[in-house]
């Protein structure tokens, strides 16, 4: 009796002092996103998609065109599993910076992935750059982020540059079809994201030799309580095309204000942001019928790439929603991390950074070949398409290569 008691105590002590998990078998990635605060909804969707991506990498699914889906974990690192640790920015640049410092002090993560807003990605990546630690940006779209000469900063998503280029290629197509696109109104939130999107649009209008004209420039404060003045400014300018750089809450207010105030236009185009939130299409019904925006994933992509259905189903089981462009960019980003870990000679910040810089990952998740970073850290294999809301669903309407349905032209309240 006494002996078995001693054995039991010995076992308990052994278990008690054993590490909680086999740390050597895990590679920790710190995820920096707004999990509370005004952008918690977006953060929650992104968290769900990272959990799906982690599941696909760590377990065997064998999805065609998705690397690491057949193997379990990171093959060249003894099949180590990816471990995700979430850090809450609350949507605030200051909190984001503090959390980044905490991640670096803890010293467990091998890579930081973040942050949702460009205005948070910017200061947090300054911290990582100063500490020579790799930062992989999934979805922030301000092109300025990759124009800072940083060595440790990489971005998977298309930028305002890509979206603006796509918008004007699209408008050029429409113009050649005889549609009115000359008069453009630009509505944007006064944040890093909005201001840079505006610059990209303005640059193209100024360089068009009079083909396009900026008839209204409407900046507004983020977290607006009403947007009547803004919508009336747009109405007074009688634009052919309205371009938005807005997040969900304000995008919804604008859509309602346009309807309430009888604003008519030929096309309403959105940079990534509120437009891409699936609630925008499903929740606002007729109010947003015909709205268009940049898109790296829409549910009808599955018609072109059937293997994406498995991922979409996994995500839908967690959120009740289809994947959207932002979620798919985040999904792809974790595979970029997995690929870098797999190729890195070790898991030191310098080695992971070098592996990221040499990335040439072919992955069938978004338009374009996959992910390859230019010297400035921007993914140059990415492409964007134009989607349009039709009967509360996002449908790809341009370019022809990806379109599943034709463009519907003209918005009337």
């Amino acid at each position, binding site marked *: 009796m006494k002996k078995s008691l001693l054995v039991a105590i010995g076992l308990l002590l052994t278990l008690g002092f054993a590490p909680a998990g086999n740390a050597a078998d895990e590679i920790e990635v710190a995820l920096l996103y707004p999990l509370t605060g005004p952008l918690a*909804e977006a953060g929650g969707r992104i968290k769900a998609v990272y959990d799906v991506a982690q599941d696909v990498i760590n377990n065997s699914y064998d999805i065609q065109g998705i690397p690491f889906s057949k193997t379990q974990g990171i093959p060249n690192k003894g099949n180590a599993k990816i471990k995700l640790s979430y850090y809450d920015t609350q949507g605030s640049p200051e909190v984001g910076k503090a959390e980044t410092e905490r991640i670096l002090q803890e010293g467990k993560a091998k890579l930081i992935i973040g942050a949702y807003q460009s205005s948070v990605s910017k200061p947090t990546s300054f911290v990582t750059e100063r500490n020579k630690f790799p930062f992989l940006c999934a979805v922030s779209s301000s092109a300025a982020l990759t124009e800072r000469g940083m060595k440790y900063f990489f971005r998977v998503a298309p930028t305002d540059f890509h979206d603006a280029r796509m918008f004007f290629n699209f408008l050029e197509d429409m113009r050649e079809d005889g549609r009115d696109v000359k008069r453009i109104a630009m509505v944007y939130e006064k944040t890093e994201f909005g201001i840079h999107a505006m610059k990209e649009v303005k640059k193209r209008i100024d360089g068009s030799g009079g083909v396009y004209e900026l008839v209204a420039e409407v900046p507004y404060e983020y977290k607006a309580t009403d947007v009547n003045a803004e919508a009336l400014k747009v109405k007074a300018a009688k634009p052919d095309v309205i371009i938005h750089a807005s997040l969900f809450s304000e995008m919804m207010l604008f859509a309602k204000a346009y309807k*309430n105030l009888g604003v008519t236009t030929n096309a309403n185009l959105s940079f990534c942001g509120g437009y891409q939130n699936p609630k925008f299409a499903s929740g606002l019904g007729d109010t947003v019928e015909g709205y268009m925006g940049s898109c790296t994933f829409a549910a009808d992509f599955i018609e072109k790439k059937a293997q994406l259905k498995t991922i979409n189903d996994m995500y839908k089981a967690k959120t009740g929603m289809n994947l959207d462009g932002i979620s798919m960019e985040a999904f792809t980003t974790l595979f970029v991390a997995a690929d870098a870990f797999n190729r890195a000679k070790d898991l030191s910040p310098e080695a992971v950074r070098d592996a990221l810089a040499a990335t040439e990952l072919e992955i069938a998740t978004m338009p374009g070949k996959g992910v390859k970073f230019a010297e400035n850290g921007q993914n140059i294999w990415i492409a964007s398409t134009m989607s349009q809301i039709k009967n509360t669903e996002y449908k790809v309407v341009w370019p022809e290569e990806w379109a599943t349905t034709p463009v519907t032209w003209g918005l009337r309240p």
Partner: protein
Amino acid sequence: MDLTIFLQLIISGLLIGFVFSLIAVGLSLIWGVMDILNFAHGEFLMLAMFTSFFLFAQLGIDPLYSLPIVVIVLYFIGAGTYRFVIKPLLGYTVLIALLATFGLSILIRNLVLFFVGPNYRVINESILAGKTFSIGGLYFSVPQSVAALLCILVTYGIYLLLTKSKFGRALRATSLDKDTAMLMGINTNRIFEITFGIGAACVGVAGGLLVNFYAVFPEVGLNFTVLAFVIVALGGFGNNGGAFLAGILVGLVTTMGGFFIGPEYKYTLVFLLYLVVITIRPKGLFGW
């Protein structure tokens, strides 16, 4: 400039101003009687919106019909807040109660975030949502017009309650001198509790209507809280009629200023107006 646009600006400014007034009137009432600034006012608004939303989503009750339920629920939330949060702190400095409401606001917001989640929720198919009517090229949002109408009724109702009823006299007496009111046999605790309840019920009306044209999410109250404080201060702390007029003024300043000076400056203009007014008249436009 197109006259239609100018008139539309005035109409839009007035309509959104009435909504601001409706949110601020309850806050003003609580301050006027109790000298307590309720920092959880924005969260009360959020709770009202969520109550209305869930009555619609779960039971199919249109926000217009569920408005009385929302008002009653918010009354009890307000009265409960007084009984369990404010009342135990009444013997201490006002700052303690103020901080308690601040803490309560964080607690409510995070409880909702935890239990309901951060998702945006939108009602787009109610009796009022998305409806507009047009007169001579001028557009009127139906939910905002109804909110304007109810704002006038609520403010007038509070005016009548305060000036014409026995309860109103007791309330004003308590507001002027709590100790003397107690000596006259007025149950001041009861008065405070009902006042807090009515203040929350007022924001219940606002939330029940706002749900028709605004997304519902845990942080929604924050967007309105600061404006509501400015409106109450502009109108004169505790002056409900003042808060009513200041709300309309803020609506007009944000809309007209946003259009003529620049949308990015519209809130700056409101705060500038606030600074100018409290510098010249520290008691606010209609304070005494």
